[in-house]
């Protein structure tokens, strides 16, 4: 069983609602076990706040196994904290030392307004997908799955792009709050597959237009998104999206 012996200082963003100005508040947590996840450490803090009659800190989380994409804390200046390729829920306290001060903030972007404390509104991502992140096939229209062989390398590449969990760490870390890694991952997944070809050029135009309308910034290729993505989504996807976009706008005869 775990031995809880870490004492930490937390500086946490508190904001009552979208309109509230918000501020950083200091908290102390004691007897933290290195086997705890970062969110379990927050559970301990919240339990303490509730018994003291304070408002617990609100943060998004659900599956706690790194796949739903709901957790979203900006920890010590990095989305999902200091470890590479993990989400906040899979970050464990053994990544910190006794006596550390940890700064925790919500994702910051105009397109991701803060709802409360560390919770932000990421519905912009859903709207980008609704603009074209799909293949238009109604239920019941499919041919036999093996009638469409797809080279393994291509299927694997599509899968790697499809591994995106939509957490928004790319936007959070990008100095421009750009969503291009997220958008390009979906565009790439579908552009790499034969099923995605009929709508390929319409899709890239519509999704990029929606992305711009949501108020995300422009990509300046710093590569921070790729470095911080918990699922290792590659910058190559952005290049592919750019390519498809130029083809759609300048070569294809289809209007976006």
């Amino acid at each position, binding site marked *: 069983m775990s031995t809880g012996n870490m004492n930490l200082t937390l500086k946490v963003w508190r904001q009552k609602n979208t309109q509230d100005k918000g501020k950083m508040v200091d908290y102390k947590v004691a007897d933290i076990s290195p086997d705890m996840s970062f969110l379990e450490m927050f559970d301990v803090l919240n339990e303490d706040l509730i018994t003291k009659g304070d408002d617990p800190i609100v943060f998004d989380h659900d599956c706690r196994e790194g796949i739903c994409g709901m957790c979203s804390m900006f920890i010590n200046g*990095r989305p999902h904290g200091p470890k590479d390729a993990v989400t906040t829920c899979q970050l464990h306290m053994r990544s910190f030392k006794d006596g550390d001060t940890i700064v925790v903030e919500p994702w*910051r972007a105009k397109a991701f307004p803060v709802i409360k404390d560390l919770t932000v509104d990421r519905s912009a991502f859903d709207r980008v997908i609704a603009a074209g992140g799909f293949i238009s096939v109604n239920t019941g229209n499919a041919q036999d799955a093996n009638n469409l062989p797809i080279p393994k390398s291509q299927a694997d590449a599509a899968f790697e792009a499809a591994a995106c969990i939509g957490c928004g760490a790319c936007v959070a*870390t990008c100095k421009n709050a750009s969503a291009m890694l997220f958008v390009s991952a979906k565009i790439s997944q579908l552009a790499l597959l034969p099923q995605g070809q009929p709508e390929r050029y319409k899709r890239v135009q519509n999704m990029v237009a929606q992305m711009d309308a949501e108020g995300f910034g*422009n990509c*300046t*290729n*710093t590569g921070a998104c790729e470095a911080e993505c918990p699922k290792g989504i590659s910058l190559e996807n952005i290049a592919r999206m750019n390519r498809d976009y*130029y083809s759609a706008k300048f070569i294809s005869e289809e209007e976006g």
Partner: protein
Amino acid sequence: MGSITNAFSSSIGKKLIMGITGLFLISFLVVHCFLNSFVFFDKTGVLFNEGAHFMATNWIIRAMEVVLMAGLLLHIVQGARLTFQNQAARPVKYAYNDGNANSKWYSRSMGLLGTLLLIFLIVHLSQFWVVSRFTGIPTIDANGHEDLYAVMKETFSNVWFVVLYVLSMISLGYHLLHGFASTFQTLGWNHKKYTPLIKAIGVGFSIIVPLLFAAMPVWIYLGL
């Protein structure tokens, strides 16, 4: 046509303009650097002035100069617009942001580096370009060409200008270190086999070209 015009106002379109103009400016640097390197080979400046004369009189070059200026202007204006837009995309900043953990400082500082280069360009252009194109160069060399070399010697006898030029070339180096490879990414020219090569060439270019440029004022100041 609607598709094409609205393409340039989109996020990717704006980047495209930055990329194309950037690439164009890179090609200009090659020519500029090549011709100026004459200073290393001829102390009298005759060779250098020959090159300058060619650049000043060849009509293709003169035409390209207009395009260059337009490209430069576009690069600056678009860069500024993008910088402001990108800042607006995050109205509330982080209290603590550890950018170095995931990206290079110069890739995040293109606006700043660009601004430094703009200041340098104003000084540089007023010292040479304005003189050679508009106000006129007072002396001529042994060949009877305008003696731009003399203007250069005069300018770089002042150690502060030498320092300014060297520092500016460091800015240019970092600007290119990100900008070179970034341009290819923006244009979508990404390929598992060639991208590493492009990146390597980018690093080489960003070191060699600014180094040569920076060496010129030092060379002349030291009278080598």
